[in-house]
């Protein structure tokens, strides 16, 4: 059995012989990362190569660890929002929502309908921005920094910039908004914002057709079809969520299956499912989601109910929320999958800070497929697969 055939055969556990590298086997050991153009941040994969074929891949995350969860234990509930913004820095709105939903559930704070509506709207617009960024970087992984890939990248960034401008009009920040708070929102929708949203999203939905046409090219299909297949079984075992899981044929979307915010009012929410589980399927799922999110956003922005944007008392001092001892879990659907927040409150003297805040980042689980899927592929494919997983190292390492 050659090394390549062995790698292509089903492998029960790629981690079993994790550090037993046999120098006699004539493999080349290569570090992909941590400083590498295609690792989307700082992520290291140790590749054992036979020629260009990967025999074994061992991922080493952790280069971007900032101790966010520990830091959250020292901050009061009202202070945590801006910290978690930096976790998934491509979709910060959803990070804010996740922690604040957990706090509200723990503290028993009611969120007014207008704020809930705005949260849904912001989440969907943010999803558009996030998927656009993914589309651009994925094309760049396939096409190089000096070529057609960059063209798609530039177009996608142009559209994303328009969305960031929308958010800037709303919150004053392009990126790390700090607009959610315990009990609702901090910034109300400014006058004329809805028209802007319609203009921007309308333009984007027209242009997505063009990008799709640009990418429905034989070279793109050749590079993605059948590459990096994750079957449904593996996806479920590794805890994949979001587009990755749906691309593997599992019809699961928290927005529909465990609705939060006002998702239960959106009756015809279309969930994209593909069965192939390869890079092409992941691309297709995300493009459908892009269109669907645009449609929902345009629907929601016209029907924002009147009323207050923040429930409960206005926040005067950081430590004004006191939690009783207990624990909650909140999961929401981010562009990358289920972002879970598990909160244990101490109660009593420790009532104004979380005792433990555990964040379940979808990207960390996505990276768990690396040792299963990389073997048998070439280095070029590895880059394509890594790109299709859409990992955000900020939330992987926290």
């Amino acid at each position, binding site marked *: 059995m050659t090394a390549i055939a062995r790698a292509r055969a089903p492998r029960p556990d790629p981690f079993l012989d994790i550090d037993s590298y046999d120098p006699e086997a004539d493999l*080349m050991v*290569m570090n992909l990362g941590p400083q*590498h*153009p*295609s690792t989307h941040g700082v992520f290291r994969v140790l590749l054992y*190569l036979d*020629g*260009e074929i990967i025999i074994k891949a061992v991922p080493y995350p952790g280069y971007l660890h900032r101790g966010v969860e520990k830091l959250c234990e020292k901050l009061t509930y009202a202070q945590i929002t801006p910290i978690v913004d930096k976790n998934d820095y491509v979709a910060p709105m959803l990070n804010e929502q996740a922690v604040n939903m957990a706090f509200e559930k723990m503290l028993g704070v009611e969120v007014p309908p207008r704020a809930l509506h705005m949260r849904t709207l912001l989440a969907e617009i943010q999803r558009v921005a996030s998927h656009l960024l993914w589309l651009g970087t994925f*094309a*760049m*992984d*396939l*096409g*190089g*920094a*000096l*070529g*057609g*890939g*960059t*063209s798609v990248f*530039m*177009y996608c960034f*142009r559209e994303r910039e328009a969305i960031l401008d929308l958010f800037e009009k709303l919150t004053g920040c392009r990126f790390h908004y700090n607009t959610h708070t315990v009990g609702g929102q901090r910034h109300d929708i400014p006058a004329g914002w809805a028209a802007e949203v319609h203009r921007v999203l309308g333009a984007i939905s027209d242009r997505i057709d063009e990008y799709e046409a*640009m990418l429905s*090219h034989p*070279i*793109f299909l*050749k*590079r993605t079809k059948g590459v990096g297949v994750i079957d449904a079984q593996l996806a479920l075992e590794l805890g994949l969520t979001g587009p990755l899981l749906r691309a593997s044929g599992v019809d699961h979307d928290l927005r529909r299956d465990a609705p939060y915010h006002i998702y239960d009012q959106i009756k015809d929410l279309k969930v994209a499912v593909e069965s192939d589980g390869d890079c092409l399927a992941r691309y297709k799922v995300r493009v459908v989601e892009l269109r669907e999110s645009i449609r929902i956003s345009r629907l929601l922005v016209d029907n924002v109910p009147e009323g207050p944007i923040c429930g409960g008392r206005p926040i005067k001092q950081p430590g004004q929320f006191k939690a009783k001892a207990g624990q909650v879990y909140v999961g929401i659907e981010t562009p990358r999958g289920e972002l879970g927040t598990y909160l244990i409150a101490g109660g009593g003297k420790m009532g104004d800070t979380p005792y433990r805040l555990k964040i379940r980042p979808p990207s960390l689980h996505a990276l768990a497929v690396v040792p299963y899927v990389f073997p048998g592929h*070439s*280095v*070029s*494919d*590895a*880059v394509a697969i890594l790109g299709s997983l859409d990992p955000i190292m900020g939330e992987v390492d926290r």
Partner: protein
Amino acid sequence: MSELMLNPWIRALFWGLVMITGVMTVTAWSTWFERKFAGRMQSRMGPTLVGPLGLLQPIADACKLLQKEDLVPDSADRALFNLAPVLTVGFAMGVAAVVPFTPTMLAADLDVGVLWLLALSGLMVFPTWMGSWASNNKYSLIAAMRAVAQGISYEVPMVLAIMVPVIMTGTLSLSDMVADQQKNGWLIYRLPLTGLIAFVIFFLASLAEANRIPFDIPEAESELVAGPTTEYTGMKFGLFYMAEYIHTLLSSAICAAVFFGGWDGPIAPGLHWMLLKSVILFVFLTWVRWSFLRLRSDQLMNLCWKYAVPATLALIPVTAFYTVYAAGKGGV
């Protein structure tokens, strides 16, 4: 003057100097053009700050590259590491010697110009391989393997494709080839489809040899950092880049000469036509580069051995039969 120019040595010296200066200059500003073009394609501005329209950008780039620290990795093979960039530019420039811009404006009117051209293109693999191997870097090593595989594979369809013009015109000299086209019509349309297919394959093969997208597999920034040039800094890196552009420009010029009738054209002087055709082909190359994704190396090999080589193999007998038939009827 004209008597002097009849002496092949003096002519070679004169046009050689003109070519080197000219090609270097054009190469420098072709980078400016490419950046402007790519900028426009991607709805940005391209270089704007240095000089009017950013026209002095190539000079600024050269100054920057010259100022960079000249690093040689400790574990590198110094001699080979330093030799590779020089050779790569040397081989790329060597091709310029036989490119016929006008009947008189060519450095060396070789009887075997086509052979010279193919030989130098074949040699282009060596400096890439040499530099990558000498760098002692794993990314470079993979890149070198890819470059060699790609260079050697695409040599085959390239040689076979250029056989079509050689059979049709019955000469290995590039200037005679153009003269023949002036008399009997351009090769691209002289024999329906055959010339066109030969051109497409020759063009693709020269793209592959110049490592341009969609065939920039050895360089593959997103996979192999910078491929063969990963460990190179400053002007040595610059030389590799220069060689790539020289190769691309000269490939366009050769295609223009071999398939599009070179200096043949109405009204304007021959040189204008030759340059115009070359520039159109170069723009086309740039356009392709900024709109396509990259193939994988095994897919590239498939394209070469399963499509390009059989197609060219089929073209040669077709062309040969046609040429014999036409000769029997009293010339093309």
